[in-house]
């Protein structure tokens, strides 16, 4: 007899109304005293303030206007506010590292306001380039899509990043790198299909 372990619950699409449950204010509901994911880095968190703007496009080139994007990141020193990162006590109290942004219901654009993360330790202490982890759900997406966002002004760190190095052909690495526009502004588009399809991760 094979060993029996419980299997992961299968995924189902978040549907078009994911905001009702996860960002009720966007659905016009004021139900919960505290909304999760509204502030990634509070005003007192030390670090370089950055803004990332972009669009999510489907396979027909149409903007995806009902997407929920979750952001997870380390602080400017590369530390996660989580017990599995043993340095977590050093993280500023106003830093949650977690954000929820939705694409605009009319235009499909999104905007992430945060502080730039530091370099994060990888496996075997091999450094990873500064990055955000992104996780996306929407109608028509059966299993949440995970990817990363790296920064275009970190060319040296990106060239040494162990995850980016796995991407073959190398030309697809650009799909994970946000373009630096100066003054802490970045642009980053996500494409679900097509010639410039974003690299999605099977972690």
């Amino acid at each position, binding site marked *: 007899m094979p060993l029996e372990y419980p299997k992961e*619950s299968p995924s189902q699409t978040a549907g078009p109304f994911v905001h009702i449950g996860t960002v009720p204010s966007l659905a016009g509901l004021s139900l919960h005293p505290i909304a999760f994911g509204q502030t990634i880095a509070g005003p007192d968190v030390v670090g370089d303030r950055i803004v990332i703007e972009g669009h999510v496009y489907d396979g027909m080139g149409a903007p995806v206007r009902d997407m929920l994007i979750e952001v997870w990141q380390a602080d400017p020193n590369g530390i996660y506010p989580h017990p599995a*990162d043993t340095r977590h006590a050093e993280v500023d109290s106003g830093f949650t590292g977690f954000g929820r942004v939705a694409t605009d219901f009319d235009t499909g654009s999104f905007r992430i306001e945060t502080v730039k993360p530091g370099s994060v330790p990888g496996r075997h202490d091999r450094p990873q380039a500064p990055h955000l982890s992104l996780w996306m759900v929407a109608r028509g997406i059966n299993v949440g899509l995970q990817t990363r966002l790296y920064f275009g002004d970190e060319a040296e760190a990106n060239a040494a990043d162990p995850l980016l190095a796995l991407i073959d052909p190398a030309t697809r690495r650009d799909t994970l790198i946000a373009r630096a526009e100066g003054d802490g502004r970045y642009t980053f588009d996500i494409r679900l299909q097509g010639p410039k399809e974003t690299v999605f991760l099977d972690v």
Partner: protein
Amino acid sequence: MSWDYYQRDRRWHPPALTPDYKTSVARSPRLPLLSVESSLSEITGPTFSHTSLGDLDNDLIHNYTGEAAIGERTIVHGHVMDENGRPVRGALLEVWQANAGGRYRHVKDGYLAPLDPNFGGCGRCLTDDEGGYVFRTVKPGAYPFRNSANSWRMAHIHFSIFGAGLAQRLITQMYFEGDPLRAQDPIAQTIPDAAALDRLVAPLDLNASIPLDSLAYRFDIVLRGSRQTLFENKMEGA
């Protein structure tokens, strides 16, 4: 540090491209996913606290106006565990659903069933030390949606679950035992294996029902397990 999550069995989950659920056609990646080993970026994730929850957050019958919502009064309870059967403590569950008539409180929902003035349709709770959770609501109605001309969603509650790390992140749906629409619901049918879909069907739990008040359903959720099995005496995350 080594704290890997088990590989996700993608044959057990719905594939990205499921043409009978038409919206997936233009929204499914066509290139292979990049397989990577988990790092600190994946084994960590946001954490949530009871102090951030309100008293009525897990009571969808009353949390919108304080007056009772209309419908079959329903208790949903269960446990969140990992693939080793260990409880997942402090997991955040967020739920959302249509009202008893099958309509969401959302500007984009134009279904002709009435809105219930006392039903908002969302709630949340955290699991306790044994991984247990409970909330109460009204049973959602079935509703039609624009897929094929005559596509209907079976009654369902949407679940968003945060475990301990980003790699455990899951959104899924709970269905009710004995629903006659199961075999034709195009979204339930994106799951290829009938045994996998069974796992999303909550059985009626008469023992947990409250006489003359509410019916109960039991819905257990399994998140991904991690390999940290041989060293249980280690500090969490050490």
